[in-house]
């Protein structure tokens, strides 16, 4: 990562690299902090550290400094309680947390590190590890160990594009966020961070900072479209819209195309574990079946309806567990079906709803319901039921001016040809919807 920063600072030192509620930082300022922090890491003889800081410029500087001197950095999620952070420190065996928070584990403030007088640094070490964390939707997050060299192996394809302004719509503890950081540095562009990762704040930041490029989950984009529609304000003139982290429904692609006519639309398929993303740009849902051909940097196969992957940029392994051998296949947890020339996503394995013994995938149902006039947001999920285990239920946020009864009856009509187990048995109308990490929770229900 340091090599990307050095190329950028040589080419355009005074360009802004990060703008956020905490201020703006130029490439030269960032580089200065990185030199100081790298020196501090060497002086303190650190090997493995965590970063917990709401300012993305600070996170970027610490990660770049780590990558300069071979220290394994790991970005912690912002939300957890102090106790949860102490547990992560213990579990991941971090020597120190760079943070301003008063937790019981050893801490050091960003300002203190950045105030170090930059000194001579050793040559670039051979191994430069970084640890990312899984979201931990099912249990405690796991530490995913990567090497910078593997993560950066395709960045030479990214041309400088200093006019690009990228929205940060993922936490930097998420792999999606790390990918944005890497891309921004490689493109020598600007990162725009909002007050929070909530679509409302993101929209404000997009308008205020003239964001041109944005990457988010389908849930994020669905909420963002709803925000734009409901406030009636200016539509950001996006040139690039990327979606990833969840299955992308076709209806959503259509709505985004309509809303952002000047944007290229990419679907990104990736996971923290496989290090490198696959991008699909043809505007159709799913992956082209050609992805199943062997030989690429990322290879796929379908086994028992689940997508398996192996990647040349794969993780080394999970923290505290055995290393994963090179070229090993791993299950993605994504259920797929090959339809014609396409690998279509049916949802997460954990999202499948068991309705009286029949497996129902919520995503295709959400896709249908989202096309009904007046539906602003929809979530389909499994709702516990004493007679059949679960029934498929939907929750809907309406666009203004629509009648609940009329929309409910239209929703039933568009689902009438589905197998009985897949028809929504409960339709509820909500004022708003909540998400976790801008992803929709489906399987477990309430």
């Amino acid at each position: 990562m340091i090599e990307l920063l050095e190329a950028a600072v040589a080419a355009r030192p005074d360009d802004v690299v990060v703008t956020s509620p905490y201020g703006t930082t130029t490439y030269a300022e960032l580089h200065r902090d990185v030199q100081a922090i790298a020196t501090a890491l060497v002086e303190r003889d650190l090997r493995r550290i965590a970063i917990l800081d709401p300012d993305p410029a600070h996170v970027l500087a610490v990660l770049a400094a780590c990558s300069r001197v071979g220290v394994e950095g790991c970005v912690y999620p912002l939300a957890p309680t102090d106790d949860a952070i102490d547990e992560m420190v213990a579990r991941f065996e971090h020597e120190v947390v760079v943070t301003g928070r008063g937790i019981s584990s050893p801490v050091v403030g960003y300002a203190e590190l950045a105030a170090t007088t930059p000194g001579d640094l050793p040559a670039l070490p051979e191994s430069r590890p970084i640890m990312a964390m899984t979201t931990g939707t099912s249990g405690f997050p796991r530490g995913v160990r990567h090497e910078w060299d593997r993560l950066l192996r395709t960045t030479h394809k990214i041309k400088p594009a200093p006019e690009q302004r990228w929205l940060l719509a993922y936490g930097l503890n998420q792999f999606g966020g790390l990918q944005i950081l890497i891309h921004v540095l490689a493109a020598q562009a600007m990162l725009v961070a909002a007050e929070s990762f909530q679509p409302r704040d993101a929209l404000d930041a997009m308008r205020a900072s003239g964001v041109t490029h944005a990457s988010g989950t389908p849930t994020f984009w669905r909420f963002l479209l709803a925000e734009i529609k409901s406030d009636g304000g200016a539509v950001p003139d996006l040139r690039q819209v990327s979606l990833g982290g969840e299955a992308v429904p076709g209806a959503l692609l259509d709505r985004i195309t309509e809303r952002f006519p000047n944007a290229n639309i990419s679907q990104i398929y990736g996971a923290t574990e496989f290090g490198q993303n696959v991008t699909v740009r043809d505007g159709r849902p799913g992956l082209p079946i050609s992805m199943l051909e062997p030989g690429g940097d990322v290879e796929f196969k379908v086994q028992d309806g689940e997508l398996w992957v192996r990647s040349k940029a794969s993780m080394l392994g999970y923290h505290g567990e055995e290393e994963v051998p090179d070229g090993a296949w791993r299950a993605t947890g994504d259920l797929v079906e090959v339809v014609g020339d396409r690998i279509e996503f049916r949802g997460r394995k954990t999202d499948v709803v068991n309705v009286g013994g029949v497996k129902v995938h919520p995503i295709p149902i959400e896709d249908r319901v989202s096309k009904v006039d007046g539906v602003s947001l929809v979530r389909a999920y499994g709702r516990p039921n004493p007679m059949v285990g679960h029934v498929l239920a939907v929750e809907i946020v309406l666009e203004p001016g629509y009648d609940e009864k009329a929309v409910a009856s239209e929703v039933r009509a568009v689902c009438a040809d589905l197998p009985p187990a897949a028809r929504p048995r409960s339709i509820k109308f909500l004022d708003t919807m909540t998400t976790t990490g801008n992803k929709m929770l489906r399987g477990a229900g309430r």
Partner: protein
Amino acid sequence: MTVDRARAVIVEFLQRANKEFGELTDDLSLYGGGLELDSLEAAELSAVLEDEFGSDPFSTGDTLPETVGEVLAFYNAA
């Protein structure tokens, strides 16, 4: 009265489910020989009742209701 609203919810559900019924008498069976609800339809009825009233006799009681009257009695008692 809650019980009247419960009756209205049941009627609306039955109409939507295209069920033939004359009068909604208390001893009318929900299942065979009566309304002929299958398990998914019964599950739906319990879900719509819960949506409307916050609880329903299918999820709460020790035994599943078998007649219209047993469903209504749950709301009468409430």
